[in-house]
């Protein structure tokens, strides 16, 4: 029932960054993912849209092991996330250290920013590179200042998160993720907790990032933004992928009734708020 997959073969031998096949996940008795299939090619931007409770955030959190999947295959950069293949072909669960190593290559930006509250913006950014990647403090600091300039916050390097607006905090969080030089960045509703007038500044940073060729998976409610920057839009509902494809198809000419209804309801909201 899922739309035709954009399989590795399509991209002339380029290996996909993320491969998901039949990913299932339950919380207790509630099944939140019913077998998700998805490929994310390097340098591409994939937007996951859908009503709340559709499982898109859960799926995103599975990609960096913040949630464990129950069944299926989920590989990032050619490696099983959370497992390795043993000699007899069985899957062996990775220990915490190995999982940490996998997570280093996957950046994550959270809905509620989750900046380290007791550290300045600059300290937030260099914490990973210095503590985990063992970069020298001077190098990490230089890279961090460069990133802060890119997100337009060089003047806030020494501010604490409590002294920054939501939009500024989220831009620091993006810089923190970038400082690890990840191969892939996951965005979990990055603008949902922001005041409407602060959404634009965060989307601008993300747009620049997309143009620079970063591989991104974005859970978002910003349909116009998805249309603008996504290479692939995935519409999820009730734990299923209903349809996926280029934004012009999925957003412009949806084939499924449920997609159409969702887009209508979202547009309605946007019209009400004057957006």
């Amino acid at each position, binding site marked *: 029932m899922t739309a035709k997959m954009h399989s590795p073969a399509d991209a002339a031998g380029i290996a996909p960054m993320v491969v998901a096949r039949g990913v299932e996940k339950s919380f207790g008795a509630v099944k939140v993912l019913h077998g998700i299939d998805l490929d994310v090619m390097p340098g591409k931007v994939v937007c996951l849209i859908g009503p709340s409770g559709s499982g898109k955030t859960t799926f995103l959190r599975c990609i*960096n092991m*913040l949630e464990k999947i129950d069944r299926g295959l989920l590989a990032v950069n050619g490696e099983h996330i959370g497992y390795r293949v043993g000699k007899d072909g069985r899957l062996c669960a990775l220990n*915490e*250290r190995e999982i*940490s*190593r*996998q*997570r*280093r290559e*996957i*950046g*994550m930006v*959270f809905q*509620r920013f*989750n*900046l*380290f*509250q*007791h*550290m*300045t913006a600059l300290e937030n950014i260099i*914490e*990973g590179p210095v*503590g*985990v990647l063992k970069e020298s403090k001077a190098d990490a600091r230089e890279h961090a200042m460069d990133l802060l300039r890119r997100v337009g916050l060089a003047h806030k390097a020494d501010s*604490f*998160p*409590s002294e920054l607006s939501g939009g500024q905090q989220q831009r620091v*969080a993006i810089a*923190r*993720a970038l400082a*690890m030089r990840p191969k892939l960045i996951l965005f979990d509703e990055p603008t949902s907790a922001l005041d409407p007038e602060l959404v634009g500044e965060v989307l601008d940073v993300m747009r620049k990032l997309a143009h620079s060729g970063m591989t991104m998976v974005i859970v978002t409610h910003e349909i116009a933004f998805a249309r603008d920057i996504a290479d692939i839009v995935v519409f999820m509902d009730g734990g299923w992928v209903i349809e996926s494809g280029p934004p012009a198809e999925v957003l412009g000419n949806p084939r499924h009734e449920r997609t159409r209804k969702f887009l209508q309801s979202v547009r309605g909201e946007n019209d009400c708020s004057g957006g």
Partner: protein
Amino acid sequence: MTRRLDAVEIIAAMPRLDGSESVVPVRHIGRWVSAIVAALLAGGYLYLLATSKNMRWDVTYTYLFHPAVMSGLWLTIQLTVASMALAIATGGVLGSMRLSQNPVLQCLSGATVWFLRGTPLLVQLLFWYFLASLFPVISLPVPFGPTLFAVDTNSLINQFGAAVLGLGLNEGAYMAEIYRAGILSVDKGQTEAAQSVGMSRARLMRRIIIPQAMRFIIPPTGNATISMLKTTSVVLIIGLPDLLTSVQLIYARNFQQIPLLAVACFWYLACTTALTVLQIRLERHYARGSKDAKGVGLAGLFGPFLKSRLASKENGL
């Protein structure tokens, strides 16, 4: 007149707030009366205390730096420091066992806390004091091999040792709960953010969780330390001459109970004040990045008093 004023008339008729002192403030008559009554009572009490012939401030003053009092004070300080050090260590071990994912460790920690909090401190103190009757010799044997060392229990655990074990382990059970609550109070998003940059569990605790949990851990730990300072006086039961005991020994001879208790109070208050200052400094250190970082200060000592004065200024007292 039933006709409503229009805007122009309202503007013309009504004076504006001009930011000067010209507004007549609300009169808080009840507040004034209660303040005067309370001040009179407190003043009268202090006057009686200061002028009473039976109070014998001269006796208080004579014994304030008496060698017996000094050595009692020194013992109280030693007991407090050693017991709190043991309590903090015990609490750390019990607290991390409780938070670990190992069910055996969780259970053991829970049972230990249950026992230490559930039995009287005095009983625990006596238990350690009489440990020799249970285990006359403490030894460390190698299984199926020779004994590495063996000591007579009474020589290992003297009065001071028993006091520190009793006080420290008992307080450690409460500290474990303080740590647990402090660590759980840090937002889960902090853990997820740290994991997403690939931090190891140890580093996550050391760099992210504990520094933020300290804000919640220090105030109750300060309370516990001040409480410990005063609780040390129960070591009287196993015959250690702490501050209170040495004062009691003196008034048993000269019958000047109140003046000598005043000596003890003076020194307890001096120590408590020093501890409060220390606590405020620590709180300020760990308030880094929080909104109230600048609100923490020496004012904390008499905070309620100063705060109420500020509030009444705003209300125009």
